[in-house]
């Protein structure tokens, strides 16, 4: 189900030991966040698993809902990999669980964008191994 992506698409290192659970979750179309078992606090960006002696951290699936905290709309000159997506709406989403996470929008025009707009997560399968969590209006 992966689409053909531009050869220069800036794919993430999904084998990064800290981020791997996040990327594996995305591949299953789940949005994961890291939680401190002791305090219940969510950590984003995530901390290494040996943080404070280890064993405190776990990954949980979150609701995948939030609101637009801020956004920019990219125009030329832009990365070659995104040429067919311009104007490209990049967002910082405030998750309902608290973290601010970077993404981009689909099924939305720049004119529809608004601060505080409710959004829900979607998933774009880029390659066999890489799926990006992205966002769309939660109408």
């Amino acid at each position, binding site marked *: 189900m992966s689409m053909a992506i531009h050869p220069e698409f800036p794919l993430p290192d999904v084998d*990064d030991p800290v981020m791997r659970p996040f990327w594996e979750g995305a591949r299953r179309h789940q949005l994961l966040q890291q939680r401190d078992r002791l305090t219940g606090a969510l950590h984003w960006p995530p901390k290494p698993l040996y943080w404070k002696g280890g064993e405190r951290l776990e990954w949980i699936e979150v609701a995948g809902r939030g609101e637009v905290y801020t956004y920019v709309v990219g125009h030329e000159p832009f990365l070659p990999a995104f040429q067919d997506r311009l104007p490209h709406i990049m967002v910082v989403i405030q998750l309902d669980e608290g973290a601010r996470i970077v993404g981009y929008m689909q099924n939305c025009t720049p004119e529809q964008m608004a601060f505080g707009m409710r959004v829900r997560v979607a998933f774009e399968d880029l390659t066999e191994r890489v799926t990006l969590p992205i966002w769309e209006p939660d109408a």
Partner: protein
Amino acid sequence: MSATIDADLFRRIQDRVAIVGIGHLPFAKDIGRPISDTAVEAIQLALDDAGLEAEDVDGMCMFEMESTHEVSIARRLGVDGLRWWSKISYGGGAAAATIMQAAAAIATGLASTVVCHRARNRGSAASRPWAKEKEIVRDDKALHTPWGLIRPVDVIGMWAHRHMHEYGTTREHFGNVAIAARKHAHANPYAMMRGRPLDMETYLAGRVIGYPLHLYDCCLETDGALACVVTSVERARDLRQKMALVHSVAQASGPNPVHLANYNNTPDMVTTSVFCADLLWRRSQLQPKDMKCAQIYDAFTPLVITGLEDYGFCKRGEGGPFTEGGRIELGGELPVLTSGGGLSEAYVHGFNLILEGVRQIRGTSYNQVPECDATLVTGASGVATSAVVLRGE
């Protein structure tokens, strides 16, 4: 935060170290020479300005982003031998930190005379780091780059847009910054934008790059090479230039930083500069009200507005209105970017702002602020950053 800063300890540095020489090559879109060559010439010009010889130099501080090496520069320059050197990371955050580390080395006796420099060939569009992004994205960059958020204009645009939403900051406020920088550039014979006037109508008509930021919100990628010479006050007294004393200086990352995109730093998007400003003013006997002008890092116009807030010239959210009525232009309450800055003189990771700070203290700026006895020079918000307060003797 920083409750343990020991003012007595900082007094080993405060007003005991000075910038005594400055130099730079003419800025250009294509300088036509490698930075291994331009860096050495810029340092030589700074030494000439100070009345010092290469043999006097025993320390060197430069940007980590340089592709040159200390020993190579020292050899070409004719330095007998380095006994202290250091490189500072985070491009736009680094300029004042070179002064801080040089000052610390001098204050502790690890070096006696240090040259700091930035040489950079980035005028060509093909040289921009973000345009080359095609490898697998690792580490912190994986938190934003895969979604296309990599151009600095977009990463900073996120902050700028939120600031507009939260505080009512307008494009006209950003325009005030661009226009002030451009006005100041007209008196500077080295400014890239000298003789190219900018009014609000033209500013507003600039094409969109990353909404809400437009063409004239962006700095000028430039080829340049700049240097300064730092030494002890005792040594400086025997030299030819009026010294620019390092009164306070600080470097800070803030908590949880992600390069440019540390949107999770604090609940209200407090930038790295807030943490740097806190250290800077705690160490300083002078305060924002004592600054006769300020060189606020300006890769993009909104950074000046948040910088004015971060460094305490106005409250959070008031940076936009602060730019109104010519307040940040020569003759105003706080002239900002008196050389034209990164927006209209040259974008060289803010090292030109250090040189302009020194000129203001010497009384030799092309836009001299009368009786300028203290000025602030800052690095970029959003990256691990630095700032310095320079004063006259």
